């Protein structure tokens, strides 16, 4: 059977991301399992949870990138959330320190930065509004919970967080107007 080649010659392809992920996932899995086993054997505080969370963050942010909705806002928010989770785990599982203060500051900064990322390229970024919207909502919910649970001395964090969230939400709504509702409709559709 003689084949007439009618396709362009393709240089030997580098191993794709999929292959790389297939290979890389094993050191990650082994690392996570090893840390859990060692932690259980050695006993003490649950430091392996931080190792696992760190590995997941690294995996999701550096290696297994999002196949859909990979944009500057979503990635920035994702990185912020992972950082907050790791800080919270250190605070609750290892040593209580001023992590909650850092988390609050991190979230304020992230809200402001995501707002800037959004507003500086509004034409394109309006399609990417949803991750920011959820981040704002999460910040507002956290503020509400914080208000109920925290001491009076920590109210400043709650007030700043909720204020920034509300301001950003108002800015989004006033800039996008009808598009804001349209984006929400798309994001929440069940059709």
């Amino acid at each position, binding site marked *: 059977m003689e084949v007439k080649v009618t396709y362009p010659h393709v240089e030997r392809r580098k191993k794709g991301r999929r292959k790389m992920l297939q290979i890389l996932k094993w050191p990650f899995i082994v690392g996570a399992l090893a840390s859990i086993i060692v932690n259980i054997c050695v006993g003490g505080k649950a430091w392996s949870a931080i190792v696992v969370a760190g590995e997941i963050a690294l995996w999701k942010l550096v290696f297994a990138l999002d196949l859909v*909705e990979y944009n500057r806002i979503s990635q920035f928010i994702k990185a912020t959330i992972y950082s907050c989770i790791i800080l919270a785990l250190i605070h609750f599982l290892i040593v209580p320190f001023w992590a909650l203060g850092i988390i609050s500051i991190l979230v304020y900064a992230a809200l402001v930065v995501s707002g800037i990322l959004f507003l500086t390229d509004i034409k394109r970024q309006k399609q990417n509004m949803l991750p920011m919207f959820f981040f704002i909502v999460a910040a507002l919910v956290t503020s509400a919970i914080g208000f109920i649970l925290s001491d009076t001395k920590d109210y400043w964090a709650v007030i700043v967080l909720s204020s920034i969230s509300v301001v950003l939400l108002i800015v989004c709504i006033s800039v996008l107007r009808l598009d804001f509702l349209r984006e929400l409709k798309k994001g929440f559709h069940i059709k």
Partner: protein
Amino acid sequence: MKTKKKNSFDIFMDRQTDENFEKLRSFFIDFNSCCLLNKTDKNKMRKDFENAILYYDNKHFTIEKILELLSLKNLGGFYARPAQSWFPLDDAAKIYPVSMEHGVMSVFRLSVNLKEEVVPELLQMALTFTIKRFPSFATTLKKGIFWHYLDSTKRCFNVIEENDIPCQALKVSQSGSQSFRAMYYKNRITVEFFHVLTDASGGMEFIKALVCEYIRLLGIEIEDSTNILNINDNPDIKEFTNEFLNVEKTPNASGLYNKLATQMSGNLAKVMPCRVLHYRMDANHLREVARKYGITVSTYILCLMFISAKFSCEIYDGEFSIQVPVNMRKYYESKTLRNFSMYCGIRLPISQIQKIEDFKEEVVNQLTIKSSKEEMHKMLYATKKLIRNIRLIPLVIKQPIAKFLSGILGDHAFTSTLSNIGIVDLPNQFKEYIQDMDFVLNTSTTNRASCGLITYNNNATLSITKNTKDPSFETKLYELLTNDGLLVEVEGSELYGS
């Protein structure tokens, strides 16, 4: 003082008469009001227009003719308005984004082989003019809370020269990225579609419109364009319909779950597909051969695929199952350009597969029953019901489960696939310009080979997408076809990754 270096279009403009210069100048002034894309896309589109004008000038077209061919009415306001529409995925498409992985995506390919080399400048203009008629194709895949959706995007959609392996995954992650790939290579125009957009029928409508526009831009007067969507008509809302929503209730919803099938034995290649082959045959002769066996062309090819699969397999006691997509448009009146196909699995024990005569009746019976309207209706309703039942589960939970299930319900349940688009209906005049067509199926992660059949201008092309370097399947298939007296011309790609 630094002077701007003149490009070939500036030089072309310099040598125009005052009258022509004025015509071209006002053309580009009008262009500015018809194209309100961002600066990069607008400049790119303007450059495309300039390149097309230069091409025509080289071919000694008059300015009047050039401006008539490239008339701005073909932009139709599409590029002057902001993107506002969006499209929920149809029920069949919902599985594709949740089951995709890095480098693995359900991409199929339709090609038109012309009798002359493609003019890239004109193909680019043809795409620019055609895409507005297909708003659900001018979209970017986005992620909602419960389902993905297609978000309209306004940009200059690009035609590229083919330089990669067919049916590779598209990069759909970024804002504004397109879910199809329009390409050219020598005399071939190709469009590769991510299945979220459409099925083969919808893709065929798109490529027919694209090629028709390309032929018009060559300066050929199209006398009759019946069966081709007019690119300057308004899109019909029925073309975006998710037809699954209109499926009526049936008490026996079934057909989605299949037993696992035996796979052919060759090792899966590192690069997929590792080869694409096209067997070109005389369609009338092929029909005659099939008729000699008393079966249809699809059944005949199916039988040959079973025999070839057996020849390529070291397991002797399992069952082969070949997936046959069924176009629902033949049962339900529909104008949709979205996915509206189901499938059935023709299943045979390997031990039963000997000569065509021995098992053709069984294939015919299964095909008749399993692809009947009643069975397809059950499957359509099962799909609709499944989608409805899980619609309120957030995507973040659905995604890993769907990814796992798609492997079981999809790839592993079948040995191979045969999709027959049938005879492509184009105006007779096109026979002067179009040689034949190809239909290449998407690669799967387990099936070693799949086949797509398409017929145009009495040329039947059976395209084989290979995922194993083991040549047994295609060699046997070729041998069987030639043994039946068919003259088969084989074209295709090199063996990738070797």
